[in-house]
């Protein structure tokens, strides 16, 4: 194994056109870092512009757009979340059942009052989770794996509810990179941009490939 490592690195060193720069701790490291940093300069020139000046409006436009195909609701506070979820499920003709991310902000809510049966087993049903961030540029929501954030649940559900605080919406992908810069990377950082889809048969888009068929984003606050 070490053999392969050495021989690959050796062969890179031999063919290196940077004249030996790039070795660990070597003269080149700082220059390399500076060059890498410069490649991130002037992001405005190389990224799409937002559809509107307002970050939340932009997020909604992107998330609802045909490419992402999510639905979006806005509520003033967490208290009305169960009722909003219940209304969505009723409208969609789904049973009033769901599985929720085991996190205090969701556990504290009175789901029963909204007529929702909270279950432990997802099995293609509804799942509600709280996103850490939203990204307007792409209409994405971000979840990180954690003790109270199982990754698998987002993929085993049939309908995915994502709760997103308005103040957690960032403008661009770079803003997310900056937000997590220096933090210990989670095992999984997942940018979710719509429901599970596939174009594998004749290039035509079908939702519900393996994971959720629908993604419903509920923006809380900022109204």
């Amino acid at each position, binding site marked *: 194994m070490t053999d*392969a490592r050495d021989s690959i690195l050796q062969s*890179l060193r031999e063919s290196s056109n940077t004249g030996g720069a790039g070795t*660990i701790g070597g003269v080149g490291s700082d220059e390399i870092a500076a060059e890498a940093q410069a*490649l991130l300069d002037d992001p405005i020139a190389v990224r*799409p512009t937002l559809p509107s000046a307002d970050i939340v409006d932009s997020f909604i436009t992107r998330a609802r757009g045909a490419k992402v195909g999510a639905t979006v609701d806005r509520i003033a506070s967490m208290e009305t979340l169960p009722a909003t979820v219940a209304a969505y499920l009723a409208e969609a003709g789904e049973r009033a059942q769901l599985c929720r991310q085991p996190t205090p902000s969701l556990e504290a809510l009175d789901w029963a009052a909204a007529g929702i049966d909270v279950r432990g087993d997802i099995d293609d049903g509804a799942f509600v989770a709280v996103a850490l961030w939203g990204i307007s540029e792409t209409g994405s929501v971000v979840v990180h794996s954690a003790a109270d954030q199982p990754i698998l649940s987002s993929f085993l559900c049939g309908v995915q509810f994502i709760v997103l605080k308005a103040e957690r919406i960032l403008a661009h992908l*770079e803003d997310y*990179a900056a937000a997590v810069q220096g933090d210990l990377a989670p*095992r*999984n950082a997942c940018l979710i941009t719509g429901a599970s889809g596939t174009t594998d048969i004749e290039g035509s888009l079908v939702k519900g*490939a393996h994971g959720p068929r629908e993604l419903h984003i509920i923006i809380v606050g900022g109204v």
Partner: protein
Amino acid sequence: MQVGMTSFKARAKSALADATLKTAIDRTAGNAETKRATAVGEFPQFDAARRRGRKIKDHVIANLEHYLTQFERNAIASGAKVHWARTSQEASRIVIDICKAANAKSVTRSKSMLGEEIGLPHALEAAGIERVETDLAEHIVQLADETPSHIVWPAMHKTREQVAELFKSQHQELPASDAIPDLVESARKDLRRKFLNADVGISGANFLIADTGAICTVTNEGNAELTTTPPKVHIVTAGIEKLVPSLGHAFMLLRLLVRSATGGDFTQYTTFHCGPKRPEDADGPEEFHIVLVDNGRTKMRRELPEMLRCIRCGACMNHCVVYRQIGGHAYGATYPGPMGSVLTPVLDGLKQSRELPHACTLNGKCAEVCPVEIPLPSLLRGWRERSWKEGLEPVTVRAGIGGWAFVARRPGLYHMATAIAVRLMRLFKRGGRIAWMPFAGGWTEYRDLPAPPKKTFINAYHASRRGAKP
């Protein structure tokens, strides 16, 4: 399968005779072409982004050793085990050994062209390990016992009718109809059980993030996460060119990749995987292995550095007139289309694959759409030069081009030769056309040839200037 047994020309010929294949390719590639055009049209910064993307890749390739060791250090710190493989055999052996150590009976795989390149499907089969392909297209290809025909749409060669046939004969959950949503639903049900019971999940990586040691997968189906979360062991196989300095760099390239591949703005699931399950985590694999694969890449860095920029978007094949006629299998290699015809001589040797760089009109469309500005036609021409230099070109071609160039370098002789050629050609003309002529079969089998007038331009022009009868 297709490799080696028949010649490129024979495979191309049978592909051309397959009208269903053409329908299938046009449906998907046609869709992709239109969607890409729209996505690029809606992103006025695309050209600037391409130049930046190219610079990012060039920077990484120039400093590959730095980034590889930085990545390795951070990956190990996150709890990953990092393996290195010089060749495809070494890479697949490492993967099989990890599977065996985990007592794996069944593995799930999330689509990875590198996995195909290193022969993983075959190696798993040889080791007696059940392989479940989780990408819908790879699943179709597996049921049909074929190989991918496209790097983004492995089942591009299949029409929905053919997929329906496959699913009806092999799924437990039969599709309700031939409609595409019903086919997808049938696969969803069939695959779901298998996801959860696998012992090992194997994925590729679209990017390796040097400053965190994370690997990035992108899918629209969500199958990568379903492949890599439930099993005890997650193995990543990745080419060493997949490095980027940081998350921000990955995002810049993702903007290009997604638009060029599917015409979306972003993939549905873009996930950064960093190490195994943490003690407090709700789920995730206990072991996380990353296999860094060279397989010709260090050699390419010397000889074809531009090609290491490739981010595997597939746009070059969607826009290739040759690919669109013959499909991916005719190329007889892991990577088809323009990028494949540049890569295959590296991977399989030029002698085996010298036809591929020739099977191209050099029209330049691939380079025009390539999101990292790879000059594919020049690279293909480079292989032609190599092949000529190494004496791999057939004698007929060498004699033909050599003889013609010999004459063309002797103007007097050349103009005598053209005058004779004109006279000979005119022997075969009917009206203004030639429908058949010896030595011109390649042309006249399919097309008429215009008959030349009695005098060449040079002769006629100078004759008229000298006042003679033109």
